[in-house]
Each structure stands twice: as C-alpha cells, then as structure tokens.
C-alpha cells in the first residue's frame, strides 16, 4: 500500500543534523501500524512527509506502487487522510463548514452530525461552533478527528489521537479504529498509549530519526518502558 524508500529530512539550524535518517518501510493494505518513540524522535515529521506537508531531503514515497513523492497535498488527499497532532484553529469557519469541506461536497447537517457523534460531540452544541480558540483542546482534537473520519480515504493517519481526550471518549476512539480496520482501511497511528499499541499489527519505534525496532505488540511491548499504561 505505502512504501517509504530511504527517506531523510533535515532542516537548517535544527538541533540535530537530520530529523529523519534513512527511513525505509512498507505498510500493507488493511494493516494497522502504530509508530511510537520519544518526543522529538521524528514521528510527526514522518507523517507530514507522507501527507506531503513536508518535503523529504532524499528518498521516495510510493502509494499503491505509484510514486507520489512529487504530488501536492491536495493530490495525496484523494487517498490519504491525516489527523494533525496540533489541531488547526480558524477564524469564521464552523465545524459544519469543515465537515462539508472534508466530505468534498455539501452534506446535510444530519450527515455532518454523524461524524461528530462518532467522536462523542453533541451536534446541537458543536455543529455551528467556530473552530477557534474558544474551543477547548480536547474539543478541537475531537473535531480534528471527525474531519478526518469524514474523508473518503484509503489510508488514515492519526497523530497522537489520544492527546487531550478524556477516558470515556478514548474508549470510543478505540472503537473507531477497530471499525476502520474492519472496513479494510489502512491505518497508521502515532501514539504512546498501550491500549492503542496493542491494536497494532506492527509497532515501529522511532528514535532520533531512525527506526530503532519494529515487530508485533508481543515482541515490542515488553521492550517499551516509556509506554504509558
């Protein structure tokens, strides 16, 4: 489904030379991959590169055997949906507007409501809210996730979806991921949560821009001390 070949990324003036250092990996169609690793290890950068938000210094990206390395974000968005670690705030754009954009067409409020319910937000309270800093961190995060769930994509990437989400919603989130998996979607989740790590077909540990190790949860989980319960 997705293949990264020898991806490196460096920035001028970065704390270390390379944010990502010769990363190669293959992700199978319908698989569930969790990427974990310490803060600053390059996880979000890797996701940004897959989505086309950041450009790798070297290396190539293939999606279903097509070279997408030079595709724009918009082009990749046909197949890839990406939930940001830091939800973006706007001025004057409502939750309903965002869900309309995400759906690629004008949808009925009832249709938009479905996506909000999935993330545990009451549509009556949120559909017409503006996506600005008057929303709490957890609310913004859930709206961000809802916008991604509204996408007709094949590959879903979630960057720390659990951040700021309360426990009740967290269990809901797990259900969402299980459902996506059942629908044969390919899923990449960046996470530190054991409950999410346990869902993985494969766990990848990034450290200092390199793949430190990878394997199934039963192989990897015992190695991870940093993972929160």
């Amino acid at each position, binding site marked *: 489904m997705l293949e990264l070949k020898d991806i490196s990324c460096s920035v001028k003036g970065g704390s270390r030379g390379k944010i990502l250092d010769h990363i190669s990996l293959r992700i199978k169609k319908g698989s569930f991959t969790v990427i974990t690793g310490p803060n600053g290890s390059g996880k979000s950068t890797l996701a940004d590169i897959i*989505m086309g*938000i950041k450009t790798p210094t070297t290396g190539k990206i293939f999606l279903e055997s097509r070279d997408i390395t030079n595709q*724009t*974000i*918009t082009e990749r*968005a*046909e197949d*890839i*949906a*990406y939930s*940001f670690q*830091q939800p*973006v705030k*706007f*001025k*004057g*754009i409502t939750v309903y*507007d*965002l869900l309309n*954009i*995400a759906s*690629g067409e004008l949808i009925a409020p009832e249709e938009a409501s479905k996506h909000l319910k999935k993330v545990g937000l009451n549509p009556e309270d949120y559909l017409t809210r503006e996506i600005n800093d008057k929303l709490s961190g957890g609310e913004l995060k859930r709206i961000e996730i809802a*916008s991604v769930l509204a*996408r007709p994509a094949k590959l879903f990437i979630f960057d720390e979806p659990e951040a700021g989400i309360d426990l009740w919603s967290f269990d809901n989130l797990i259900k969402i991921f299980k459902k996506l998996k059942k629908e044969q979607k390919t899923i990449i989740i960046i996470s530190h949560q054991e409950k999410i790590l346990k869902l993985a077909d494969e766990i990848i540990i990034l450290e200092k821009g390199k793949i430190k190790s990878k394997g199934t949860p039963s192989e990897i989980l015992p190695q991870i001390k940093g993972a929160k319960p």
Partner: protein
Amino acid sequence: MNLTDEEKQIFCEVLAENDILRESGAWQGEDERASPVATGASDAARKRSFRLAYKGAYNFRVNGKSVGRNSTKNIDVKPKTDRSGLDITIKPGTKNEQVHIPVAISATGIKEAVYNDFYIGDNAEVTIIAGCGIYNCGPTDSVHDGIHRFYVGKNAKIKYIEKHYGFGPGRGGKILNPVTEVHLQENSEASLELEQIKGVDSTIRKTTADLDKNTKLIVKERLFTHGRQTAESIYEVALNGKDSTTDIASRSIAQDLSKQSFKATIIGNNKCRGHSECDAILMDEAEVHAIPALDAKTKDAELIHEAAIGKIASDQIKKLMTLGLTKKQAESKIINGFLH
C-alpha cells in the same frame, strides 16, 4: 419613480448586493434582477412593486436624488431643508422595525455629501440599513460622503448595518468617505456592522462615539481592498459614563498593492472597559498600518488593544489541503470565513 434604464440596473444591483433587503421582505422572494424595476416595467407597475414589497420606513437615493421615501407610524423620514440628507425620527418604544436608506450612484463625476441624522427615542429597538453602491464607467471620480449621526435615547438599542461596494470598468475613482457619529445616552446600546468588500478605490472612514453611563458600543468592521485601493479607518471612542463598554473588532484583507490603515483611539474617562482589535491578512504587496491608542484618564479604565497583521496562516491552508482543497480554494475559504 423616474429612473433611466441604467439607473434602474445599478439600483437593483445595490439592492441585490444588500441582501439584507431580501431578509427584510423588501423583495418578498422575487429575483431582484427580474423584478419590475430591473426589467423596466411601466412606472405604475414599478411603483406598485416597491409599495407592495416594502412597507417599512425607507429612503432610496439614486444619483443624488431621492427616488422613493416612506415613513411609518413610528418612524418619520424627512428630507433636510438646509442641506442634502434626512432627519429620521424614531418614536420612543418602537420595536422590531427597520429603516432602509440605500444609495446608488451610476453616473460618473458625481460628488455629493449627505447628512443623515437619526433621533432614536428612549426604549426603541431598531435596525438601520444603509448600503451604498457606486458604479462608475466613466473617466471622472464619483464621490459619496455619507455623514450619519445617531442620537440614541435612554435604554434604546440600535443596530446599524452599512455595506459599501464599487463596481464598473471606468477609469474614474469610486470614492466613499463615511462618517459615523454615535451619541449614546444612559443604558443604551449601539451595534455597528461596517462592511466594504472590494471595489471601492479610496475610502476614509471616521467613526466617533461618546458613551454615557452603562452604555455599550460594538463595532464589527470588515474590509477587503485590492488593486491600488486605499482605505483608512479611524475610530475615536470616548467612554465617559461609568460602566460604559466598547468592543471594536476590525478584520481586513489587503490584496495586491492596496494600502490600509487602522487607527483606533479609546479614551477612558470613567470606570469603563474598552477593547479594540485589528486583525489583518496581508497578501501580495499590500500594506497595513495599525495604530492603536489607549488613553486612560482614571485607574478604573480597563483598556485593551490587540493587533495582528500577517499572511494567511500556512497551517490553515495545509489543513484544508489535506481535506482535498487546492491551495487557491483553501485560501478563498479562509478569507471568506475570516470576513464572515
């Protein structure tokens, strides 16, 4: 109503742009462009259409002359005798009524100054809608200076909506210089929505207000300049009465080579709260100057100014692109939302 075909056309544009007219029932579901005015029906039919469609208080001004006027039981619309303009008197206690005073200019080289005074009785709650559209297809500047003064009585509440637009291919400038003066008596409230989206070449907008005890002034300004347009917006708000408050929020987009300046002065003469905010998006080679001034004359005055000028946030563009929009589409969504 004796309008030439061209005047009719422009006037209909103005009414159409000023979609608040539709909301108020002025056009009762008709397609404005196909209305009897636009299609050049007989005078009688046109008159009937305006009368039938719009029953509220109004004055319609086209190319410097009044082409229709109506007073209601509670709202008196009278032309001034000493100079061009209107005296509009709203009876105390008037509720849920509107006054429409749209202006259309289609001739090149028109220069006019219009003085409209509003006397709003105690306890009244009304909405006043003024839209001005200039169509200039000729070589000479057309200028409309609208001076609006509001005397707001005790406990009264007004909403004033002003929309400005210019269009037309002519070399002549489309120039609008609105002056708005608001006097708030005890416990009264005024909310101003001032909007100028594209098309006006040059504008100097001056808004002044004095606020008595326990009053509130809210201003929402929306501005979009492009080409080589210039726009200057000046506010001077004096918070004189105890517990008076004001919130001035300006959002603007400056595109191409246009230039904007925003100058807001809030003077706190008593225990009061004032907030002004200038939020501008810069594109291309445009320039925006924000000059805030806070003048607190007592320690009980709480005054805040915020100004943010910058290009469209790149994370906003990127987020919308991940949802399938092109960069251009993303930008236009962000701009439309911002000016909303």
